[in-house]
């Protein structure tokens, strides 16, 4: 057993009847890490979180936390705080009673509880809200209180089950940064389940990308984005252009372009992010430059998603990002042609 890590998942397997929800999940999480389970709905990320919490029971496999085998422990004997998408605040108790819910049961003296509660509501940015009932708070405020309640007993592990999905877009961005700041301040090991890749990229130390009950890749946000381990990861995280290509004689050929490539002859797919195709700077004599025609411009504010077609790629369509300024400087519009350059070192081949 690896003792440098705080939480170890070993060969976790989960079946619901004949449906396999999780298959041989192995994962080590270090103390103080912020981990995101990222994947489409039905990939098993929430099931995995609930197994760590003891709310679902794995069909097979072990969970160790802080060196202790917790695989068979009921939730009440484990050490974690949890926040759900629905907030799950007790509606008939005010903020103070909600936050103190777990403290009261530990026979903590009343004065200490009061102090701890006011400390916690201040921590989540809602000082003085003790007397208010949950229904008088906004969604984001309720989720902050739920966070305070989960942290009240100073658990070793914080589990967040899509905590931001029920909030509106602005509140979501604000709260995710607050959660990250709070987590770094307290140093509590945190696992957050999300299907929002932007959310995962912006807060996580490491992201666990899951699909169909399997872990596709574990890595830092940068690794996940720049070095996706599988077509699924490349496709799920960020936007990507997928082009058919062929490897033969140590060269990758796609369209009119050729790049050195190892391996035997085979059909492959080239994955290319929109930002890895540049419109400038392009100098005369640069390699990997091609002509393209603009087919559609999707205006998104300061920059645009521009759909281009190029004879170099047998008229396969590409999406590139061009700034609004560039488009107007060059008076580009639908039907215009322009030169584009791609960055071969960024190309992923699967």
């Amino acid at each position: 057993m690896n003792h440098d890590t705080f939480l170890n998942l070993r060969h976790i397997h989960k079946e619901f009847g004949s449906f396999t929800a999780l298959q041989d999940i192995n994962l080590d999480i270090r103390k103080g890490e912020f981990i995101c389970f990222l994947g489409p709905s039905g990939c098993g990320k929430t099931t995995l979180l609930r197994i760590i919490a003891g709310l679902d029971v794995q069909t097979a496999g072990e969970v160790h936390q802080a060196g202790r085998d917790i695989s068979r422990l009921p939730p009440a004997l484990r050490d974690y705080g949890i926040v759900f998408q629905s907030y799950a605040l007790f509606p008939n108790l005010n903020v103070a009673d909600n936050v103190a819910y777990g403290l009261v049961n530990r026979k903590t003296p009343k004065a200490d509880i009061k102090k701890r509660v006011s400390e916690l509501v201040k921590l989540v940015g809602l000082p003085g809200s003790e007397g208010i009932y949950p229904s008088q708070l906004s969604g984001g405020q309720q989720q902050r209180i739920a966070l305070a309640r989960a942290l009240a007993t100073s658990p070793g592990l914080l589990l967040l089950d899509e905590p931001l999905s029920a909030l509106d877009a602005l509140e979501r961005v604000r709260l995710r940064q607050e959660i990250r700041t709070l987590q770094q301040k307290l140093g509590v090991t945190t696992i957050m389940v999300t299907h929002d890749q932007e959310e995962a990229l912006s807060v996580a130390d490491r992201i666990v990308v899951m699909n169909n009950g399997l872990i596709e890749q574990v890595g830092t946000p940068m690794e996940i984005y720049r070095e996706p381990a599988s077509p699924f990861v490349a496709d799920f995280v960020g936007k990507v252009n997928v082009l058919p290509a062929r490897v033969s004689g140590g060269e990758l050929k796609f369209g009119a372009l050729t790049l050195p490539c190892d391996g035997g002859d085979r059909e492959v797919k080239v994955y290319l992010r929109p930002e890895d195709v540049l419109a400038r700077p392009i100098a005369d004599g640069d390699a990997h430059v091609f002509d393209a025609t603009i087919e559609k411009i999707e205006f998104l504010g300061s920059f645009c998603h521009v759909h281009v077609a190029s004879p170099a790629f047998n008229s396969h369509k590409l999406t590139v990002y061009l700034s609004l300024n560039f488009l107007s400087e060059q008076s580009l519009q639908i039907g215009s042609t322009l030169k584009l350059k791609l960055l071969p070192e960024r190309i992923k081949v699967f």
Partner: protein
Amino acid sequence: MQATAAPRYPPVRQRAHWIDRLAHAALALTAIILIAFLAAPLLTILQQALQDKAGQFVWLDNFIDYAKTPALLESLWNSLWVSSAVTLITVPLAFGFAYALARSCMPCKALFRGITLIPLLAPSLLSAISLIYWFGNQGVLKGWMRGIGIEQIYGAPGIVVAECFAVLPHALMILLTALRLADARLYEAADAMGTRATRKFFTITLPGAKYGLISAALVTFTLVITDFGIPKVIGGSFNVLATDVFKLVIGQQDFAKGAVVAILLLAPAVLTFGVDNYVSRRQTAMLTARAVPYSPRPARKYDIAMTLYYSLVALLVLAMLGMAVFASFASFWPYNLAPSMRHYVLGLVDAEVGVGFVNSLKMSAGTALFGTALVFFSAYLLEKTKGMDGLRGLVRMLAMLPMAVPGLVLGLGYIFFFNAPGNPLNGLYHTLTLLTLCTIVHFYTTGHLTAVTALKSLDGEFEAVSASLKVPFFKTFWRVTLPICTPALIDIARYFFINAMTTISAVVFLYSPETKVASIAILNLEEAGEIGAAAAMAVLIGGASTLATLLFMALAWSVNRRTQAWKK
């Protein structure tokens, strides 16, 4: 992903916390109660139906014997056609009512609705007693009845009319729910296309209420075919299945034939239950979360027509109820109509049947208290705790079963089961405790469904959050679940109380002279020719139920103020 054959692991089982074991033990206790007081009595009926008098297993001989008894077959036919007739009259009438309430801008809706629901507060046979005063041998309007060619009210005419009044509120409530579940956007779309009113009615309204209509028809049919009180009071020599059961079992001690008839009565109820279950699933699926509730717009002529129609029927309901009240205070019907307390004092108190009323109050209070506790706690265990899935399924099924069991059948099962000499629970027979338990079981399902609905509306993660905070489930139950659900609890208690006050069918088999309840006393008084006293007793029950309803409403109001302050 399933292509790779997964290795077969022995399944991991979570260690149960002692707190979880407590929940499991409580669930097992609920299962035992429901088996002893529901499943076992019902199985005994089946056993009796398949045995001869010596206790030998005789396959279907009892059923064959039954089919060869012309008098009994006549009852079967009588029951079927009377129930069908009542269904055909009541459902359209109730549909009109519900339509007026849900789809018109009729004034005083709450008042009208209240009037039509009053019959629920009194035993169903109150309408039969009133009919006797209106059309009986000394009835006020006997001449009118003869005028339209009906010789006497006793028999089929009396049963049909009295049942129509008795089941009207039940059909009304189902149809009202169905008609209120309308999506305004459908009507707006129809208006935008210039659709005529009749076409909208036949293409939107009627299809939308289809399931409600089916459900109302089935419920009406079942209520009528299994009702005992009305045919007993006004049936005369017109025999139906429900009165047959009583005569066979209590009169002739022919348990086998009684059991056969009970199984015949069970059939429509089980059918209703099955169809209703299917229908309610379809009904919820029809209305999406995005639906916009329909609200009627004023239309003068139409609203006036609806008001007149409703007033007419409401007047009939009031006449029906009012006659029993009036007659109960009349000194000597029909010769001296001066108001007096004679029937109450001489007929009830001095005749020492007043004790039945006290018994009724005791039984109703017990049913409300223990019934609500049992129903709510077991619904909580089912919905909010985990583990013991097999037992959970069993309890869930048993909780739904009473809906499909007519009171008469349940009561019969109780005699067979608890009166058996070998039964250790035999000591309960004839006690008020058993009457109370029987009534709780009889009306269990409606309470159960109310509790489940209330519990389902709570966030499903409360228990998970509590466990993560190491707070045992019973603490969360006490601090959170119970306070939030108090309005539902009061609803359940009120439902239990009123039904216990007015029920006849199940308890008619179980009382002894000491534990006779008020509703049974009405039957006995009527049989003894003391119809004035019978009316007085029925009015007393109605009065007590009304008072109880008002008290429960006041309780709900004050509890709401204290425990529901968190609501916006």
